[in-house]
């Protein structure tokens, strides 16, 4: 295999050179424990403060509202369990959607087994929730609304500002999983009335194993990892200094490049989607056509199954994904594609190609050259396609 085209930026991104350069000194040279008072510790502390400011700036928060975690999943777990247990005297009802990431869904399911009630809102065929549904779902027991900013599979962006307004009017905490949105959409937590927000570094060219939870000042939440006094006593564990400085640098770059980044990604995405529609029959584009992440293309190729498509692409050096990365070991079709109403057999044939900062026009050309051949070959093998050609469809 010679050419390698990576189109799975929503699964994870390479660490950018500038980010790595910022991180390196903190492994061996400036390795001190940030909680220590001596000079080794102070170096680390300063790096962490800087990282915190950079993350805060990208989302319009204050630095002391950023709490570092091990990633998006921990942030989601913390936000939801932390709010649930800290506010259970007020109520036991949580509202979320059917298309959340598993880091939200599985936490909600866990809470359901432990005395909480959860409403999972439906979405329409584009993946959007209905604001009226949300309003109707609210009861006097509702303590938390957790709705993702942008979906990791189909890219659809929710009406976050309106949701924030509804939450605020009803005095309910609003958490959003912005792991996919960060760096790809302008986010101002104050303007959007967001109380808690999960983010993760490795989706925006930062390192893996570091993320953050934004917690608005005054929000009543339990700690999730108890122990040492780090993160203002709210999240224990020796600070991952290099991770934090790297995350901060990635946020700084994202803020600087935001407009260019979005413009470039949309252009390549449209080229990809339009090329596919033009060259291949029986395809469907999933997710909202405009309200979507700039780099996300999610396409169903009828009559073929996603894994064999991915494998075939891999053999010609193209990396994509089918369903979300963390569930691709599973046999079930994606809960997101089910929720937007795709029949099972069609949901099995979905391909997610996500574009990032290192994607080129040539990469897209290469995909548009390879993909039609692969789809055709797999369809020729498929007993379902046979029926179509025979007019039985």
């Amino acid at each position, binding site marked *: 295999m010679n050419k390698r085209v990576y189109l799975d930026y929503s699964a994870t991104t390479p660490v950018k050179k500038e980010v790595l350069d910022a991180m390196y000194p903190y492994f061996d040279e400036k390795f001190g424990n940030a909680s220590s008072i001596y000079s080794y510790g102070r170096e680390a502390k300063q790096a962490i403060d800087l990282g915190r400011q950079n993350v805060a700036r990208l989302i319009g928060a204050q630095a002391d509202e950023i709490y570092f975690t091990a990633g998006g999943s921990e942030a989601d777990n913390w936000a939801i369990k932390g709010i649930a247990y800290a506010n259970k005297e007020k109520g036991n009802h949580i509202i979320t959607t059917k298309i959340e990431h598993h880091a939200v869904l599985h936490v909600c399911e866990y809470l359901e087994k432990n005395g909480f009630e959860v409403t999972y809102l439906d979405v329409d065929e584009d993946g959007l929730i209905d604001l009226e549904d949300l309003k109707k779902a609210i009861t006097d027991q509702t303590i938390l609304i957790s709705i993702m900013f942008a979906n990791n599979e189909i890219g659809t962006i929710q009406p976050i500002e309106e949701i924030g307004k509804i939450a605020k009017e009803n005095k309910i905490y609003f958490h959003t999983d912005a792991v996919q949105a960060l760096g790809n959409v302008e986010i101002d937590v104050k303007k959007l009335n967001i109380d808690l927000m999960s983010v993760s570094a490795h989706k925006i060219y930062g390192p893996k194993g570091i993320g953050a939870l934004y917690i608005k000042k005054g929000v009543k939440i339990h700690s999730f990892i108890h122990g040492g006094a780090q993160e203002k006593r709210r999240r224990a564990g020796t600070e991952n200094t290099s991770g934090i400085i790297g995350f901060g640098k990635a946020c700084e770059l994202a803020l600087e490049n935001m407009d260019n980044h979005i413009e470039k990604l949309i252009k390549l995405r449209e080229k990809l989607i339009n090329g596919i529609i033009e060259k291949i029959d029986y395809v469907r584009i999933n997710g909202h056509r405009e309200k979507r992440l700039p780099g996300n293309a999610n396409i169903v190729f009828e009559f073929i*199954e996603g894994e*064999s498509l991915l494998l075939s692409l891999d053999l010609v050096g193209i990396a994509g994904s089918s369903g979300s990365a963390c569930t691709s*070991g599973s*046999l079930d*079709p994606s809960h997101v594609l089910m929720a937007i109403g795709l029949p*099972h*057999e069609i949901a*099995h044939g979905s391909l997610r190609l996500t574009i990032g900062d290192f994607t080129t026009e040539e990469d897209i050309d290469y995909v548009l050259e390879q993909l039609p051949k692969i789809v055709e070959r797999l369809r020729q*093998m498929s*007993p379902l396609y046979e029926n179509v050609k025979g007019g039985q469809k």
Partner: protein
Amino acid sequence: MYTEKVMDHFTNPRNVGEIENADGVGQVGNAKCGDIMKIYLKVENDIIEDVKFKTFGCGSAIASSSIATEMIKGKSIKDAIKVTNKAVVEALEGLPPQKIHCSVLAEQAIKSALYDYAQKHNIQLEGLEDFDPNEDHHHDEEAE
């Protein structure tokens, strides 16, 4: 994730296609679960003279179908009935645990085609007495 043998059969599947006026055709699995296998047989003097398949499914489903057709081509019906999913897995030099069901599907597809052959020719085949072509042998444990 996959053995070289699986990748070989996935990239160069043997015996893909259809047989017109096949002596036996079997189809198992369903699109809902993400895999369908269809096997066509040409039988002469109790020998499987030709076999073709079509599969909608993952890489290991395609490889399982491909190697299964190789395993029965030229064999007697009696021997073909004896091909188990275990033999398919072994021939592929292993499958990941969550993909074992693909080999089960391949075994069932062969049986299903032979069953069809037996029905059409009104004969009884030893080893197929209990075979029910309409049973869903796929995802037994999962109970969707």
